[in-house]
């Protein structure tokens, strides 16, 4: 895989983000642990330092420390069948270790169930452990249509959080800063969308493995200037790859769509496997989950509510199918690879039926591989390899 120059940039950005988090208390800043689907924009005007346990868990996974940390949570009594992001985070809290030396202690937790019910349990446990408040935004699942009462409910909860944050930080809510944050968030999402859309070019200048790495900023630094600057540079690099005719995969022959969270510890092996068959994963459903935001600064809470209600894991399968089919056409792919991820039920259950419908409606073949995002103990690598190879040969 050809490394993007922006990779080094991102490493620095993420590094300094965690560094800032570690020194936050020294500078009298408050730290919030935030779930990936929570409307973080509400926190930014208060100058709160945010860290993302899910992102941290993915770093542990990529550094191949996932299984070890999971084991520590299991030793405490947590079942091996629980989400491995949770187990990884729990293990890291208990042992105080991780590739970045563990997350700093939170002053509060901020989570939203629009990605899963797991977040609720996970954050309840963390909140008891650290004895800090848990601000929970309840985002009713979008079963086929988004209802007005769901939007009202979420918007009202966001309004209610503001006075709490005021008393926590001793600052007043600064409307202007809030508007700036929303603008930055919107710009960031637009830039990210553009990043991903480069994958539609033939040959594609990036693979979804690049996107998996590059998404760290859209997840954890949404609503900041740093993230905006980063994605501008990244997009320039991708633009210039296209101009120079540089493809992410030499002689790209097969174009694929990936579904689900990456298998973090197996990224290198998988990307080589696809590359060897001149197959490029040009898009994925995961990183695209952060590529839609129609924020309306005139009506901020309601528009945040709408945007965060319809994120990918909070919508029913008919809506997921619509988005998948749109990606298939937009990126003109020849096949789809689904990661059946035993940790993440809202993402994985339903894949069998989705695969069937995709085949029926678009004619493209789908292969399903069984794995887990950070717990490598459940991954049968050889089996996955064989399946993928057979699939690619049938396409090639």
């Amino acid at each position: 895989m050809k490394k993007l120059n922006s990779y080094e940039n991102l490493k620095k950005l993420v590094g300094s983000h965690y560094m800032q988090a570690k020194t936050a208390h020294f500078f009298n800043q408050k730290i919030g642990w935030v779930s990936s689907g929570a409307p973080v924009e509400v926190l930014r005007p208060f100058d709160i330092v945010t860290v993302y346990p899910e992102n941290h868990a993915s770093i542990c996974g990529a550094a191949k420390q996932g299984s070890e940390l999971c084991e520590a949570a299991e030793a405490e009594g947590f079942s091996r069948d629980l989400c491995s992001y949770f187990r990884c985070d729990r293990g890291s809290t208990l042992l105080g270790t991780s590739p970045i030396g563990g997350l700093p202690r939170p002053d509060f937790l901020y989570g939203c169930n629009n990605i899963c019910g797991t977040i609720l349990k996970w954050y309840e446990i963390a909140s008891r452990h650290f004895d800090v408040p848990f601000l929970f935004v309840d985002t009713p699942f979008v079963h086929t249509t988004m209802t007005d009462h769901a939007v009202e409910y979420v918007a009202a909860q966001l309004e209610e959080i503001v006075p709490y944050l005021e008393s926590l930080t001793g600052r007043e809510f600064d409307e202007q800063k809030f508007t700036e944050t929303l603008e930055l968030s919107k710009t960031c999402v637009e830039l990210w969308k553009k990043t991903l859309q480069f994958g539609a070019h033939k040959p594609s200048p990036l693979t979804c493995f690049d996107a998996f790495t590059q998404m760290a900023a859209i997840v954890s630094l949404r609503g900041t200037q740093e993230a905006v600057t980063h994605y501008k540079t990244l997009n320039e690099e991708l633009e210039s790859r296209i101009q120079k005719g540089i493809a992410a995969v030499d002689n790209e022959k097969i174009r694929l769509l990936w579904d689900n969270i990456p298998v973090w510890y197996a990224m290198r092996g998988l990307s080589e496997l696809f590359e060897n068959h001149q197959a490029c994963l040009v898009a994925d459903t995961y990183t695209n989950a952060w590529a839609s935001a129609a924020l309306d600064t005139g009506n901020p809470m309601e528009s945040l509510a709408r945007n965060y209600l319809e994120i990918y894991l909070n919508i029913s399968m008919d809506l997921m199918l619509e988005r998948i089919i749109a990606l298939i056409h937009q990126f003109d792919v020849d096949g789809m690879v689904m990661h059946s991820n035993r940790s993440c039920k809202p993402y994985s259950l339903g894949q069998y039926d989705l695969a069937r419908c995709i085949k029926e409606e678009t004619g493209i073949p789908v292969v399903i591989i069984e794995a887990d995002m950070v717990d490598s103990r459940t991954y049968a690598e050889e089996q996955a390899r064989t399946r993928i190879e057979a699939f690619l040969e049938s396409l090639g």
Partner: protein
Amino acid sequence: MKAALTTLDLQKYLDQKKKTMRIFAHFCSFTPEEVLHAAGILPVRIFGSNIIEKASAHLQSYCCSYAKRVLEAGLTNPFDGSVFVHSCDTMQRLSDIWGYSIDDGFHETLVLPVAVDKGIEYLTKELNRFTRGLEVYAGEISDTALKESISVYNDNRNLLQELYEKRKGGHILAVVVDKVMKASMSMLKQEHTVLLEEFLEEVELGEYSRPRLILSGSVVEDPSILEIIEEYGLICYDDLCTGSRYLSLAEEQSLRGIARRYQGMWCPCRTASAPRGQYLVEKAGEYDADGVILLLHKFCEPHLFEAVSIRNSLKEHGYPCLQLELEDQTSPEQVRTRIQAFCEMLEG
């Protein structure tokens, strides 16, 4: 004891009912059964069987056995309709999968709030959406009919509470309680009430003996586990979806009343003001229990998450706890040995 409720053949009863009523499948203690009742529909809670064939084409191996069982039931014998609620991630996706693979006349998901307390307003509106949607299928559901149905359900639940009160003074076999509860979740409510009244008059209480156990978990599909447990100890109270989780009443006879009713229900899929272990500690005191058995489904996340803190708080208060994780394949002998050892330890 010869009360008709204890010898009832539920399957036969339902086969009869099918001829005159529309039957809807439901899967959770949060189903607004009262609304279905008011629409002249019979809500039947599905437990399925442990033979899974067709469902494997739709659900991965790491999905809980309850979801597999009910999907299998639906694929084998379709109902007139199905009502899901957003209970946990698995059941929410199962609702979608059901919609993709089973063609029933009515299929709807009530999207529950996770935070019932702050979500009452939302939930009332959601119940209203649900009701209006059902009207399209079943015809008008008047406020009077709804009030009627709510009081029919309250009457029944009052009697069920009486049953649980009785358990404090002497023993009622857990399989019998299970049968009464499951019949209540599937029979036409007023018909169950008649049988339940008779049952409560005739029920003889067994000896009050030790060890006394609380059984906590989600659904118990197969009552044979109850028999195994009661070979060694007595189940004096349960904290189950197929048991006490069903008891709370609707104080107002309206959709808001139904919404409020859910506030009183202890379910790990909802936000909690206090850890669930505390609730069990209280109940253990109230029912004079010696220990707790946690009966969990493999892959059931909400309950597996709670288990650690439940065990810790029970331990802190001196209540021993045995955790059983059941899969349909678990060998009964292994389970039996562990239950026996646990009860012997309690008798100490």
